[in-house]
């Protein structure tokens, strides 16, 4: 039992990282109906931005985190502008393929410029472990969970309490109607990319701290899994992404701990296929919504 609880703690820290990435997917899908395959690679960019902020500038955790979020937001903005905006009226498959192309481009540019070998992420937070009853918790896990919670609360505030957030929700609801109401849809979409990319970058830095190694291909798998998380919770729904992320993280950690680590990458996809068959709108999704 203690073992299960222990893995649950580990799963929640991994899950909150997935949740942060999943938020970007779900928001972009909400306003653009596009699976932004490049999102996982923006997360990689964020991790490397944090890495350079810590090594080259010698910055601490918080400044490095902010720097990474800023850089990734810029990337998100540019990607949307250059690769997705010209395809706004093209068939959706074209946009999807372009997204795959952007993902491959970022990965391969990463390999070319940053070298493929993994790097050790600087120790921004000195490791301390605490014994809580039968459980072992370290301060990095606490930092991950705390940072995720703060960022998600911030996001919730932006989406529900600000004008821009209101516009985002309107665009997600009905793009054409919002345009008719005088909302600058392009700007809202760009803002959504900025928000999502910044959150992904935060996840990247947190992963760097947690696993202490980063490489240019680190974004691919977590990106896909985070997408699964978004679908699991109900795509387009912000609380859904949080819930889905936690669920995927916990499920993965449990499988690794109690079955075998070689099944690790299959867990998320098995969950995905099951959820798509049983309840395609996700845990929090409305059942009436049929995708056309």
């Amino acid at each position, binding site marked *: 039992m203690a073992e299960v609880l222990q893995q649950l703690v580990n799963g929640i820290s991994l899950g909150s990282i997935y949740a942060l990435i999943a938020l970007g997917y779900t928001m972009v899908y909400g306003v653009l109906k596009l699976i932004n395959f490049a999102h996982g690679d923006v997360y990689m960019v964020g991790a490397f931005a944090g890495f350079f902020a810590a090594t080259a500038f010698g910055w601490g955790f918080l400044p490095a985190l902010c720097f990474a979020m800023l850089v990734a937001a810029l990337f998100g903005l540019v990607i949307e502008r250059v690769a997705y905006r010209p395809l706004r009226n093209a*068939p*959706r498959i*074209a946009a999807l393929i372009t997204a795959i*192309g952007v993902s491959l481009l970022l990965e391969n540019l990463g390999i*070319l410029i940053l070298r493929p070998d993994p790097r050790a992420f600087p120790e921004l937070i000195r490791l301390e472990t605490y014994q809580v009853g039968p459980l072992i918790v370290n301060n990095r896990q606490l930092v991950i969970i705390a940072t995720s919670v703060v960022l998600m609360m911030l996001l919730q505030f932006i989406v529900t309490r600000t004008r821009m957030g209101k516009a985002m929700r309107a665009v997600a609801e009905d793009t054409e109607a919002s345009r008719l109401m005088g909302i600058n849809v392009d700007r809202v979409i760009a803002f959504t990319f900025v928000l999502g990319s910044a959150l992904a970058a935060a996840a990247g830095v947190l992963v760097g701290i947690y696993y202490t190694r980063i490489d240019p291909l680190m974004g691919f798998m977590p990106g896909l899994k985070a997408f*699964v998380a978004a679908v699991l919770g109900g795509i387009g729904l912000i609380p859904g992404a949080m819930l889905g992320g936690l669920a995927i993280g916990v499920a993965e950690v449990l499988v690794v701990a109690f079955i075998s680590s070689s099944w690790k990458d299959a867990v998320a996809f098995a969950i995905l*296929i099951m959820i798509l068959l049983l309840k395609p709108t996700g845990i929090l999704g409305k059942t009436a919504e049929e995708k056309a």
Partner: protein
Amino acid sequence: MDRSAKHNTWWRWLRFALLGAGLLLLAAVNLWAYQGRIDFYILGILTVMGINIILATSLNLINGFAGQFAIGHAGFMAIGAYVSALLTTLRSLPFLPALIAGGLAAALVGLGVGIPTLRLRGDYLAIATLGLGEIIRVIIVNLPITGGAFGFSGMPPYTNFFWVEGAVVVTLLVLSNFIRSSPGRALLAVREDEFAAETVGVPTTYYKVLAFAIGSFFAGVAGGLFAHYLLFIDPSQFGILKSIEILMMVVLGGLGSFSGSVVAAVLLTALPEFLRGFADYRMVIYSALLILVMLLRPSGLFGQVEIWQLLGDRTNGPGGLPGKPGGSGRGGLAMPDKAGATGSPREVAGQW
């Protein structure tokens, strides 16, 4: 219309000349290959080209003709590769039955996963199939008989240029005839408007699953050829990157154009050989190319049009009817162009 009559005869002669030249070249290559006068390296490239043609055209059946955006093709290729390799190595089965068994195994899995997943649409299907490809890979890693992550070897070197050439011809014949058959028409209807197709009584899921199974079958055959050419297979060869590579050929050639897939498969197999000096930049160039093609021509190089239609075959005019097969003797690839009414202006413009 009057003006085009003379024009048409001219183009018809040109087409015949091109076709003749193509057939002659093919015959010559066959003869040289038979006499062993072609460099081993060149022959190897031609073999890989053929395998890629099979992969690209069979994926195009699913993506371009059925309109189902499935991107886990490498998974089915892996099934065919492993099943046929296990059969020839452990059961010493001859090559042809092993290839077919590999294809059937892939088709069976395609059937099994297609029935539930093809109810999904668009992006969901893409992710689900991507995930499936990955699950197949993980299963292969974990099966005791496949040698796991260390790979599998010891199969006899059956694959040669002629086997691949024969397989390519059979694939093209089957696929192009399928598209011109009644189920093929139903498939195109599903692509154009799934809802409308269903309304007029087309069992859409049935045809989508059928296309998926056929596409998977040929992916399995290609996998078998691949396994007996390379003589060493391991699960990492059939990962997501391979799926994306095949997808890239389909997209570059045009979703819904078999000849486009053939051309793209040939180009994308040959390109890396020319880019050997820039091996580091290869994938960067690839991905940039993919983005550029999508931005400039979202429907691929050839769109939904076959090459000879671009060469001025007006017999298959935008009336939407298939017309006669034209002079497309090689593989009989003619396929109806998309009825003018449904084509976006961009695609119609592409046909001049």
